[in-house]
């Protein structure tokens, strides 16, 4: 169903002002979160940066934005904006023909998501500190903002979003399951279109910030939903469609960086469930005390699980069935089956800590810096876990749905005539472990 046929939606997307208004609000909120982290109370549960980034934003991202809107967050993310405005030398004005800065192309060796994988893992290894310490969160948020600015000055388009952002990497992976997509309406129109303004820009808008040619796009993975192509397409050939869930994952992954992204996210959800929600104090201490011997062991185990144990067992599992395809090819395409289950792992894990800690939002809203304010009269709202009675059933449901969704995906991406039972068994064992960790 083409959503852009709705006149209101179409005009809202074509017009720059609604998006700009959201951008300004988001940017102000982002800068405030940085400042709150740096000057606000060091008590995470009462600091805007921790509560609004790691509880409120994370809840919206993983429970709503990614499953239902794919890269919807990227469409309003404030991180690339200052860099992009600097790069363009304008906020709204038509682009200059002559670049204002270096405008280099990102070297070919970096045009993949390995850097995103590495950046995500770096943050993941420090996550116990990052998620609880406001000034660390403030520094990381600021570093991301400045990294985006720096990369915009050196490289063309949104190099940070496309190749470095640790969040963008997994949003792209899971956006394949979302029921929203931006696609061209008629391929032939794109083939004959002169100048390809959707990619190169024109007097009415900028070329694709995400370095994607819409005419060749078959998956959501790298489309940041910036909506520039809707504005620049002279043939009205771009549409935002409502589609069935998981439409993209029927097309198997053919890249090793994307396959490993699936394992990284899959494994990280399980490890987080054990470290952050589990009852093992020694494990929590090891994860928290960054730089100690225990932490190095934790980091080594973390990386070994993600890069050796999970992919290794997966490889062994798929080797049990005969196939004409090369093993590497099968590994990459069947890893697609882990995408829906991985997303559901994150949903189940996030439900737990989001519902437990959501009540902090009210207090932090009234006193975001911990200075004793009571802006909305909710500063003294007591901490109270929410919806505890439905938590376990909801998590179980998410995991079961994820398991069957993955099994179905495995059938779709599997080579004809070979069994998907090993993949199902692998997913079933992982789901059972996750269920045990969560419940």
């Amino acid at each position: 169903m083409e959503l852009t046929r709705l006149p209101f939606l179409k005009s809202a997307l074509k017009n720059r002002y609604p998006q700009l208004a959201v951008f300004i609000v988001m940017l102000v909120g982002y800068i405030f979160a940085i400042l709150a982290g740096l000057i606000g109370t060091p008590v995470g549960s009462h600091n805007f940066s921790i509560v609004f980034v790691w509880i409120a934003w994370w809840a919206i991202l993983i429970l709503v934005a990614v499953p239902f809107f794919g890269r919807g967050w990227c469409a309003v993310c404030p991180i690339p904006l200052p860099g992009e405005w600097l790069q363009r030398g304008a906020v709204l004005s038509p682009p200059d023909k002559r670049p204002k800065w270096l405008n280099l192309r990102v070297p070919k060796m970096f045009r993949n998501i390995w850097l995103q994988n590495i950046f995500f893992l770096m943050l993941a290894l420090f996550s116990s500190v990052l998620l609880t310490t406001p000034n660390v969160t403030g520094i990381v948020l600021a570093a991301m903002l400045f990294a985006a600015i720096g990369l915009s000055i050196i490289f063309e388009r949104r190099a940070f979003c496309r190749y470095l952002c640790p969040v963008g990497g997994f949003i792209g992976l899971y956006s394949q399951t979302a029921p929203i997509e931006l696609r061209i309406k008629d391929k032939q129109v794109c083939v004959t279109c002169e100048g390809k303004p959707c990619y190169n820009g024109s007097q009415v808008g900028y070329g694709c910030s995400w370095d994607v040619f819409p005419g060749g796009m078959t998956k959501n993975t790298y489309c940041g939903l910036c909506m520039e192509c809707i504005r620049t397409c002279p043939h009205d050939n771009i549409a935002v469609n409502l589609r069935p869930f998981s439409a993209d994952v029927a097309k198997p992954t053919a890249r090793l960086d994307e396959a490993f992204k699936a394992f990284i996210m899959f494994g990280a959800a399980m490890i987080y469930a054990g470290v952050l929600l589990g009852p093992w104090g020694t494990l929590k201490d090891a994860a928290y005390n960054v730089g100690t011997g225990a932490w190095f062991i934790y980091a080594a185990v973390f990386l070994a699980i993600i890069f050796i144990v999970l992919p290794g067992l997966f490889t062994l599992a798929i080797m049990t069935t005969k196939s004409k395809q090369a093993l590497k090819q099968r590994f990459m395409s069947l890893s697609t089956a882990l995408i829906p289950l991985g997303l559901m792992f994150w949903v189940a894990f996030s439900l737990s800590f989001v519902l437990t800690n959501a009540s902090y939002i009210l207090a932090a809203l009234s006193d975001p810096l911990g200075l004793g304010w009571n802006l909305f009269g909710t500063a003294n709202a007591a901490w109270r876990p929410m919806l505890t009675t439905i938590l376990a059933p909801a998590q179980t449901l998410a995991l079961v749905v994820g398991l069957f969704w993955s099994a179905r995906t495995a059938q779709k991406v599997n080579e004809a005539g070979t069994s998907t039972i090993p993949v199902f068994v692998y997913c079933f064992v992982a789901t059972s472990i996750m269920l045990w960790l969560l419940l």
Partner: protein
Amino acid sequence: MKRPELISRILIVTGILLAIGAPLLLWARTPLIHARMAENGGWNPDVIQAEAGKSLHLKLTSDDVVHGFAVGQMDMQSVDVIPGKVTDITLTFDKPGIYTFFCTRWCGLNHWRMRGTIEVSGSPLDPEPASVPLYVSLDLDIDAPHDSSIIPNQKPSAVSGQQLATQLPITSYQSPDYYRSHSPYQVFTDLSDTSLTESQKWDAVAYLWQSNTTPESLANGKELYAQNCAACHSENGAGDGVFADDLAEAGEASMQTMEGAMDMVMQSPVDFTDPRRMLGASPALLQGKILRGGMGTGMPMWGVIFTEEQIWDLIAYIYSFQFEYEK
């Protein structure tokens, strides 16, 4: 530059300036006193200026665990300082001087080091001469051994001692001056001329100690003890409080990390149930130990925290670990 572009830029710059400027300004205008466990810095700032006769409004917050705030030698209820929350308190000092504020919650191993000072300026209207503590005027060496060479077989009973009192010229022993300057053992030996048995003499001593205090003083002493001493000396006085093992485990190094700390020698908290040690100590000697602290051990100085009356109440209570008082 076209108008929409200009307006957009103005809006963006205004938003950014607002997002940075407003919280910075409000933050700078809200001076907070931060409480952290002593190991992480204690109070910040730890020196506060005030003026005698004028209200001092403080905003306290904790950066880690629950702390408490009270000012020594001041009639006030301590307040809790909650992590991430702000506690407001208003104080008024009648007289200039240097006051000590301290944490009243057992927040960590070095809880007792969590102190700061309030420097109250102003001209003293009615200067009071400083009184010399009894242990100083008696010239006691409070670090000298003071063990009792004889100890009772069982806990002496003040009730039994009271019944014996009628047979004795006990009034001379009952004056506060005598009581405060003599150890139970010294009184025991002073009673050697009497016909009492050893056990009866100890009972009489117990009675003398009880008659020099009141139930109110004992109750007050008990409360002070529970709040300030039990963490190390234990609620039952046996010297094995919840921090005792942790302090021993942490060792001397834990006590030398504090800024400005002198070299420390770890010592186990004193066992107030040990009769040999306690019956050989006079109230004046205990006053000295409490006022001055353990000098190089983990025992803090309490002279800046407790009033003289509070110290005598505390001492009276500490002796209750040796004597069976009337309920």
